[in-house]
């Protein structure tokens, strides 16, 4: 009780300095056609941990907000809000994702900074009040797996059609997005190697390449 007010901020910076906060996301992305997704799921079922109860499915709604400091040429700060349709009592997630670093050939995976905060449903209001603008929204539906610390998601992205119920959504493409990711404190390159090895095991089905899908000309 007698401690100074600044403790929380101090301990946060201390934690950042000592690199115990998992704020780096090592990831690889790829895609698989709808026709082959069953084969991929079957493969993942064999490779991943604890699938005695079957693969975990998810059904999420993602909204991307952005806030700009200046006129259009300047890159805005984008924040993503996600909620689960199938687990209504689960908290919403606010997420900041930084620009992915592709790195040189020696880097097996891409790295981006990532911060996750669980929050309540009032986050949308809060962000709008802050001056954020809704960039886009989409629905992701698919399956989740885990292998050690690695999270593997196989998801289909659907467009949100305005004025329609979530059932009336249309798929963006005829393929599934496959993502391998590990959240870790910065500087743990051994994990990247693990991801690469795992990605190689899915080789003929999914080609994971270090392509920045997010860079768009502004």
């Amino acid at each position, binding site marked *: 009780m007698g401690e100074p007010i600044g403790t929380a901020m101090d301990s946060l910076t201390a934690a950042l300095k000592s690199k115990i906060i998992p704020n780096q996301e090592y990831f690889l992305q790829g895609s698989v056609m709808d026709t082959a997704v069953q084969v991929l799921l079957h493969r993942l079922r064999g490779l991943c941990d604890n699938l005695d109860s079957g693969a975990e499915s998810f059904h999420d709604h*993602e909204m991307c907000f952005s806030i700009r400091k200046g006129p259009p040429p300047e890159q805005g700060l984008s924040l993503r809000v996600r909620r*689960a349709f199938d687990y209504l009592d689960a*908290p919403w*997630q606010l997420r900041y994702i930084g620009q992915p670093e592709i790195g040189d050939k020696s880097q097996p995976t891409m790295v981006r900074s990532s911060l*996750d905060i669980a929050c309540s449903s009032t986050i949308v209001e809060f962000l709008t009040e802050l001056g954020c603008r809704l960039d886009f929204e989409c629905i992701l539906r698919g399956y989740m797996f885990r292998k050690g610390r690695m999270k593997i998601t196989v998801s289909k992205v659907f467009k949100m059609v305005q004025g329609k119920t979530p059932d009336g959504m249309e798929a963006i493409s005829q393929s599934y997005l496959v993502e391998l990711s590990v*959240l870790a404190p910065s500087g743990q390159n051994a994990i990247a190697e693990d991801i690469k090895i795992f990605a190689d095991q899915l080789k003929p089905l999914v080609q994971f390449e270090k392509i920045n899908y997010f860079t768009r000309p502004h």
Partner: protein
Amino acid sequence: MAYSVNISVEAPIENEIQEITFDGQEIYKTPPTLSEHLTKIAQKIDFGKTNDEENAKDPTENCEKVDEDNKDPANFQSPNWPWESLRNKLREAYTELCVLADVLAIAKDKRYLVLDPMPRDSTETSKPLVQINAKKKALGLVASILTTGTERMKVNLNEQARTRSPDFHIELLRLRQNWRLKKVGNAIIGDLSYRTAGSKFSQSGMFEITKAEDDEKPVTSPSESPNPNAVVPSNKNVSALRVTIPPELEGIAYIEVLCKKDQEALSSANITWLNSGSGNTIDPDTHWQQKLEAAQNVLFCKELFSQLAREAVQSTSPIPHMVVGNRIMATILPGIQLIIILRHSTGGEKKPVPQNTDHDHVLEHSLHQLLREVHYKNTHHTFPHPSSAPLGPSKRRCLAGPTAADRHELVEMTKSQTLLEQIIQQAQHAFMRLRIGYVLDTLAKEVKDPLIVSHWTCYNSPTQSSVKINLVTHGYDQLSKTSMILHIYEKSLKCICKDGRVMNLSYEPQELRDLIMYQIYQHQISTVQGLAKCMGWQVLGNSNGLGLGPVELLGNASSCILASPNGDRIISMRCEPQFGIAVSIAHSPRKDFFPGQLVKERKWENLGGSFKEVRWDKMEGKNFINKVEMLMASLTSS
């Protein structure tokens, strides 16, 4: 025979001349006597010939007969006495028959000898070239039969050899189906630890797999002569695999759990333990599956024990737990100790383990279950929702932010019970359950009126169970029943009485005893009131906590006063746990009235008179209620 002439042949009448002397006298042979004649004729019988004709089909005999015929003349030439030749012939015939019988007996078996009909004419008719051809053919046939036979036997032998010494690779495949293996250089290394199942125990469970033949041959046949027959029959289930497990995982281990009452028992347990160090050791020829399973069990027990020992040292309980060597001692209730011992036998000596009868199998099983739960929780994390949330934190922790959990809640989240705490709680509960059962049983034995019936629930958790106690009077079950529910926890009891009062009791059995004794007298009074209603008596008053009379040790006395239907009789009774039941009756008005100094008129008698105590032990009746019923009946009628 058309030209045949009938010629009559007859023996000459004259006797044969034997000799003619020089004077011309003829000496006649004396005609043979009848027996001489018979001998002569008999000599002429050719036994061989007749046999030959009859048994022409038997070729072997035929040959023999021919041989005999050749011998016969020799026999004819020197007859020493009249019947000799006949006797010889008969004997030969007998010998032949014996031989024939033997041959037939052998031929009947069809194992060594087969009789075939003899082609009679072929040998005579066929030319030599054809004969040779036929012979060649027959020999070829025989050769092919023999070769197929040997082939079949070879295949059989090979198969037998294969089943006896199984293929290394097939065995390896089977091993691989159940165990984790990897190849390091030329060696095959397996891992039997529970690490993939969520264990974080540091000791490794590496084992090595080698081909069994390489090590076995020098042992069984030092002369290095490759003699597979010498190895194979020695032990029937020889495996092609040899599994080498680290020495610290060899043998058999188990965790022994004991609940001891006092120190004396402890020391005696110590002595028995010292020489029970060896358990059932594993035979070196055991199948690898059993070997690996045993080693895995050893590893599991070691992990369990080290976890418990660590917790015992770290825990801050009022009475510190003791860890000595491979035993942990923890006081669960005053005077009662829980002892957990890791028993591991590696020695080669084969001594039967002195079975400790106090060993608690249920608690041992719970210990295993608790560690498996820990393992399960280590690997089975809940998936985050939405999917972008990080893996790891539990759902409660994810919600802690949005719901603004305070420090206290967060601290509560981090708290978890250690294995030792959990097993101590289970042991406490198990002990409490035993104790309560004993108290209830002895009370039911001591107290016959009313009857104490206890119903235990058959489903209970390891740390909670409940029992329902019913008090009924025999013969008056429908009239009144007092029931209680007793919840048994780890160190306390909760009793919910009939009137809804909740009593929290400690682990001391005397408290429960007192409570039930108190309930018994309550039951008696309430049953009497129920009986009074049936009998038409009036309850004038009752009290469950009577403040009068001597001070009770356990609760207050309960009492009630009943009035007969016409109001002239009053029964008063007082039940107290310590002194039992006292019943008094009063008559008003009394039948006989004598006016005295103070009470001059009879009408004052209606106010009620003095009570007289009933000698209760002299009353008729099976139990208290029965006696009260008799009393009421007698008072109503008179």
